[in-house]
């Protein structure tokens, strides 16, 4: 009995001590309330399975009033936002490959004749099949009850769907084809950011830094030297994932491998400098882990890896545009699934380069070869 009481009092002593540690570590204390608050609000608003406002392009080859009404009706569903108008089907397909639109509407020259016929589909929906959620949303459009207002009187009993759906880039609709390229980015983010997040704090904690900063080593040399080995590790990881994807999951690589590796290099550098930046902000390795974790969840949830980017409200999309992962997902999916070239994806390459430049500059400026 007495032994039990003593045991309880020791447990209480340890618990009290833990609370004291927590209350003195401001970052951890802040995370207790901050993480649930921030993440719940952010993801509560941002994550939306019911996808709307997919970016769409229209190639209207008929040029008729009826075709314009059809597009209007499609837009009225809020599933798509028409952001681009093409002169030809090829131009529309190009937009799809480059990832500028997720849905293309092709209205054929004989649109009005097809409308009168009623047994044939009137137009085509070209969809980026790389994303199953986008595909499902687009499928909802095929049964659009549009086009009936010009035939208000007689409504044929049997009517074909308005749109014929053509899924590009993943005609068999296999999940790995969508998931594996994205995994490249997610896995690299999770591993690389952590590698460098602890890189400098670890030396600080172990006392190595005090010696290192009294040597002639320059801050940029230190930073670049810290990153360099992990670039190679990043390449090894990407290669491994792509090989697994190719030979285990049957994910073909449509585009140019060299372009993919070049894009990967820029992304890896950006992800590593994000870690480096964390390393200059954190005081301990534990804090570095916490900070890295806080950047993981939004990256994984908002980057478009799990939920389509188009479905999110604009503040979440702006935030996501900052993360390296968002841009890399577009690059890797563009090249692997749609066979895009790196040049066509340049609008996702330069943000990565910019992120790298800014983050490493801030890290270098924040780091002082001093102890105060």
């Amino acid at each position, binding site marked *: 009995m007495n032994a039990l009481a003593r045991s309880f009092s020791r447990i209480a002593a340890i618990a009290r001590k833990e609370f004291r540690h927590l209350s003195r570590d401001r970052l951890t204390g802040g995370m207790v309330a901050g993480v649930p608050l921030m993440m719940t609000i952010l993801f509560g608003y941002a994550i939306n399975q019911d996808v709307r406002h997919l970016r769409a392009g229209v190639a209207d080859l008929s040029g008729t009033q009826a075709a314009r009404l059809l597009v209007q009706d499609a837009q009225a569903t809020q599933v798509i936002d028409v952001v681009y108008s093409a002169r030809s089907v090829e131009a529309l397909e190009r937009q799809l490959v480059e990832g500028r639109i997720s849905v293309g509407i092709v209205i054929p020259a004989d649109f009005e004749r097809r409308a009168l016929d009623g047994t044939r589909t009137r137009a085509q929906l070209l969809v980026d099949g790389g994303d199953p959620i986008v595909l499902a949303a687009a499928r909802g459009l095929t049964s659009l009850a549009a086009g009936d207002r010009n035939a208000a009187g007689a409504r044929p009993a049997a009517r074909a769907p308005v749109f014929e759906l053509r899924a590009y880039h993943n005609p068999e609709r296999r999940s790995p084809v969508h998931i594996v390229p994205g995994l490249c980015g997610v896995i690299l983010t999770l591993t690389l950011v952590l590698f460098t997040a602890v890189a400098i704090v670890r030396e600080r904690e*172990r*006392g*190595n*830094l*005090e*010696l*290192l*900063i*009294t*040597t*002639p*080593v320059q801050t940029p040399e230190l930073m670049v030297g810290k990153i360099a080995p992990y670039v190679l590790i990043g390449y090894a990881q990407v290669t491994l994932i792509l090989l697994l994807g190719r030979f285990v999951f049957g994910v073909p690589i449509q585009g140019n491998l060299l372009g993919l590796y070049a894009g990967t290099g820029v992304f890896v550098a950006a992800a590593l400098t994000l870690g480096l930046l964390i390393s200059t902000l954190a005081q301990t390795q534990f804090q570095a882990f916490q900070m890295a974790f806080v950047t993981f969840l939004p990256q994984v949830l908002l980057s478009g890896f799990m939920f389509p980017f188009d479905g999110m409200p604009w503040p979440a999309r702006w935030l996501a545009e900052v993360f390296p992962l968002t841009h890399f997902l577009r690059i890797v999916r563009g090249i692997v699934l749609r066979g895009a070239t790196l040049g066509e994806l340049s609008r996702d390459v330069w943000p990565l380069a910019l992120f790298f430049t800014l983050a490493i500059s801030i890290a270098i400026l924040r780091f002082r*070869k*001093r*102890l*105060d």
Partner: protein
Amino acid sequence: MSGDAIAIRTRGLTRRFGELVAVDHVDLAVPRAAIYGFLGPNGSGKSTTIRMLCGLLVPSEGEAEVLGLHMPRDAEKLRRKLGYMTQAFSLYEDLSVRENLEFLGEIYSLGAAQRRARIAELLDEFALEARAEQRAGTLSGGQKQRLALAAATLHEPELLFLDEPTSAVDPQSRRDFWESLFRLVERGTTILVSTHYMDEAERCHGLAILDRGRIVADGAPECLMRDINASVVEIEGRDLRAARDVLARLAEVQSVAQLGQRLHALVDRSVAEPAGRLAHALESARVDAQVALARASLEDVFVAATRKQPADPAGAPDVRA
């Protein structure tokens, strides 16, 4: 390089951390090719001063000139001429002895051949050859300390800062270590070493005693012992605790400290017959003891120098003889 005979010169060097004044208007003139010691208890400002001198901390006030370079402005220019042995072991524990030295050799831009030769030389000098491929983390305290000194002298610096280098090693290692320091000085290196060991302080060519951020005495150890501003009286007897209580109450006694089986009392110089005065006091208190004048030790100097500030139990000197 300046032909100045002074390696380090400071004027009014001060460093504050918030309210705390860690280093308080320190004036130094450290000659070249000599060992200069900082003697003081923990928290007396030894490490903070060293860190300001090598550019790791920016002074709040005052000036520091190291090898003719203005600190912290010219900190980068000093790096190549400076070796620094930190208080805590700061080499990489998961690298081998050789890998650690090779790494630093590359950081200091030694050529491959020069690096190889220098590392072989150091492994031999510091008796680390047998340990060359061993990971630094598995070395003993004395071996780690030798490795740290080897690393700090790898690029043959003109100036060496050693921050309590012997605080974690056995007496034999300490003696060997000091032999190495004298060899370095013979080759022209200037060494600034901080310590809280009296015997080490006594080996220095010059010495500054620090207390609560201030230099309370400085000079060659022999001079400091000769010129001590108190008479040293040695008391032997059976009941030293009683003797101590009696003496501590006397106004002219600055301090009483126990050294093994004896007491050392520091008595104001103004007392003409210090031994007789204390003997009389003990006798009238019926404490049986032998009293005699003694030569001042460095510890006496230290006690005399650090007691000038009002006594404060928290600031009791943490000094090991």
